[in-house]
Every structure is written in C-alpha cells, then in structure tokens.
C-alpha cells in the first residue's frame, strides 16, 4: 500500500498548523484583520470583482481562492488522483452553496475564518463555532436516517477541467486588468478602494500561498466541516486534530505578530449579535454537511475533478451576490435588513432537502 504521509495523523496536524501560520502572515502582508484566509469572504470579494454585486467595499479577485483550486488540480494530476466525476444532484448542491454562503455572510466568515477570528481574540467566533457544530450535528442526524444525494458518475477528462479553467480564466482577467491605485475599475474588474476588499497581500504571495495550501489540502483531505462531522458521527478525531492545529498555530502566530486582541466588541469585520452569529453558522454548517465538505474542501475537490463540488462553489459565488444585492449580508453594524429572514428560509430549504432526499433502507 502506498503511504500518503499527509493523510496520517501527523500529516493532517502539520497541514492544519501550516495553514494556521500562513493565514496570519497573509494578514500581516495586507489581508483584512482576522481574515488572513476566509473562503466565504474571498469568494464574496470575487463575486464583487466580477460585478455580480456592487458592494464597493468587498470587491477583489482573491488569488488565494484561485490558488486553492489550481494547487489541488496540480497535486491531483501529479499524484494521479485527478478523477473527473459529476452528476450527484448538482442543482441541490448549487442551492446548498447559495444558502451556505448566506449563512456564512450573516456570521461574517466561513469555518476557516471562524477559527482565525477566535485565534485573533474575537469571542464572537465561539458563538459562530457553536452554531457550526449544531448545524453539522443536524446534518449527521440526516446521514443516520439515510440522507444521500446519490452517486456521481465518471465523466470526460474535460469535465474535470472546467473549474480549474474557470479559476485560470479569473487569474488571466486579473493579470490583464490589474489594480490601478485610486481607480475602482480596471477594464472589466471592480476593485475596492476602501474596506476589506481594498486590503490584500501582494498578488504573487497570495497566489503562491494559495497554491501551496491547495497542494497540501488536496493530499491531506483537510476539511473543517468534516472535522466536526467525523467527531459527532464516528467519534473520530483525525480531521479534528488538523482543525485544532490550525487554531493553535494561528493563535501563536497572532501573538508573535501582535495581532491578538481579545474581546467581543469592536472586533474587525465582525458584529456581536450573538443570536444571528449562531443561527447563520447553523445554516452554513448544515448546508456544508449536506453537501459533504466545508467551503475550502469544496474548492480542493473541484480542483481534483469533482464537478459537483464545482457547482457548490459557483452556488456560493452566486449566493454572495444575492447576499449583497438583497441586504442579507451582515456588516460590523449588525445583520442586514433581510438577513434574519434569509437564514430562516435557508434553514427551511436545508430541512426540506435533508428530509426529502433520504433513501429508505
């Protein structure tokens, strides 16, 4: 049997720790506070860069996300793990992506950022992580009662190329329409001049870190949702040890870099409406669980040829556009005018999916 070091206990801890160190460093190099890496926030910024929403403070084509997919793609090709597959209820995965994003933007962060916020001292992240755990726990109840989106099918090599090609296209767009200081638009792309979207590490560093994490995460199967799910469903701590490593490494790195500021109020790019921090992450956690991966993992799966994970990613990008066009996303002032309603609708939709898509044994 071939040994895959990164999928051992030591391997997953190492990968978690590397992400935990790199994310605060990206923050130091320019990324937004407690947001060295946030898959949800960064996909939202990409939706903004493309003009799918016009929230001027969150528009930037994030090279980290591009790197995640392309890194996973290269790793999968190199290790002969590139497996083009699709067809496991893609439309359901698209809807789950939309509501996962809406839930994450009510809390203001994906599970990665929830950990990074906690590692930066933001106490509200504890509430979000509790919500995430509850959402995933609800998902495990559906798994136990037969929830299953069906089998994917092997397909053409080129089907697996679609998502990496989309990301490569985004990279080309960015290189052809580079940021011009003081200008909110360069060619077809939008660029934030203030707010989180205006805060970013240098392009090549962001891309390089993204590629590295893409390779490591593809080989180690790092997944924050899976960490909680496997703990609850199987009492397995394998993936969870990677998450703990990320948290500890990010905390230590933040302390060293002077980025640790404990408290609940005036935390960067965060609000302290606990009920909605909790409920938003219940929705996100449930949607991630039903779709089989956290937003980061969906990017890595998309890179290794999983078309359904790619559809989930596109759902998240579209969900981000809805979230900002319809006043669903939160801001440091609190939840958006229609955020609460969107979370409730999202939970109803996820419950409908969970209850109605069960195979009876």
């Amino acid at each position: 049997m071939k040994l895959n070091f990164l999928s051992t206990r030591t391997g997953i801890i190492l990968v978690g720790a590397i992400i935990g160190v790199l994310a605060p460093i990206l923050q130091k190099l320019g990324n937004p506070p407690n947001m060295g890496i946030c898959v949800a926030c960064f996909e939202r910024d990409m939706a903004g860069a493309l003009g799918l929403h016009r929230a001027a403070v969150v528009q930037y084509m994030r090279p980290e996300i591009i790197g995640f997919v392309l890194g996973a793609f290269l790793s999968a090709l190199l290790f002969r793990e590139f497996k083009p597959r699709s067809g496991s209820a893609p439309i359901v995965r698209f809807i789950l992506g939309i509501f996962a994003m809406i839930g994450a933007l009510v809390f203001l962060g994906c599970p990665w950022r929830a950990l990074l916020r906690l590692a930066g001292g933001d106490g509200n992240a504890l509430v979000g992580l509790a919500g995430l755990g509850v959402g995933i726990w609800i998902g495990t109840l559906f798994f136990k009662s037969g929830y299953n989106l069906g089998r994917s099918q092997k397909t053409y090599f080129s089907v697996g190329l679609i998502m990496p090609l989309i990301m490569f296209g985004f990279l080309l767009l960015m290189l052809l329409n580079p940021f011009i200081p003081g200008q909110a638009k360069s060619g077809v792309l939008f660029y934030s001049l203030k707010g989180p979207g205006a805060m970013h590490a240098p392009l090549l560093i962001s891309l390089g870190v993204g590629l590295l994490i893409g390779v490591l995460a593809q080989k180690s199967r790092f997944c924050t949702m899976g960490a909680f799910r496997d703990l609850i469903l199987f009492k397995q701590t394998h993936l969870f040890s990677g998450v703990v490593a990320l948290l500890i490494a990010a905390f230590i790195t933040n302390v060293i870099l002077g980025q640790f500021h404990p408290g609940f109020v005036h935390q960067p790019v965060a609000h302290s409406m606990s009920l909605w921090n909790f409920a938003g992450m219940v929705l996100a956690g449930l949607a991630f669980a039903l779709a089989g991966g956290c937003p980061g993992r969906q990017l890595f799966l998309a890179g290794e040829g999983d078309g359904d994970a790619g559809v989930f990613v596109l759902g998240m990008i579209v969900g981000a556009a809805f979230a900002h066009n319809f006043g669903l996303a939160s801001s440091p002032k609190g939840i958006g005018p229609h955020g609460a309603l969107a979370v409730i609708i999202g939970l109803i939709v996820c419950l409908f999916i969970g209850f109605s898509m069960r195979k009876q044994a």
Partner: protein
Amino acid sequence: MSNTIDTRGLSCPQPVLLMLQAIEKGQNNEFLVLVDTETAKENVIRAATSKGWQASIVESKENESTILLKKE
C-alpha cells in the same frame, strides 16, 4: 456477493458510514468495499482499522480499488 459494499460515486461521509453500518450488523467477518477515490480508500481503511478490523487492498484498477476487511 452480499458481503460487498459498493461506495463508488458516493461523497463523504457515505463510504465510511455504509461500511460501519455493515460491520456493526455483526453478521460477517469478511467484507469487500469498492471505492473510487483515494479519499474514500483512506477513510474506509482508517475507520475499519480503528474498529479492530484488518484492511488490505485486493484489487486496484486505474480508478477503483477493492478493499478486503477481515475481523480477527
């Protein structure tokens, strides 16, 4: 063969879930598990060995592997 668990095409956590449900029924001491991703292969082997089963790859084609699980 009734002792074969086909997890091909299923996303996480289905492969491990189906395998654990099968071995917990306790009716057989031997199972074959069909997997079609490296992730599913690693996860099934990790979960089965943690339950005290022995796992070995009996067949490996380009895209698929067959894992033999044996209870001591």
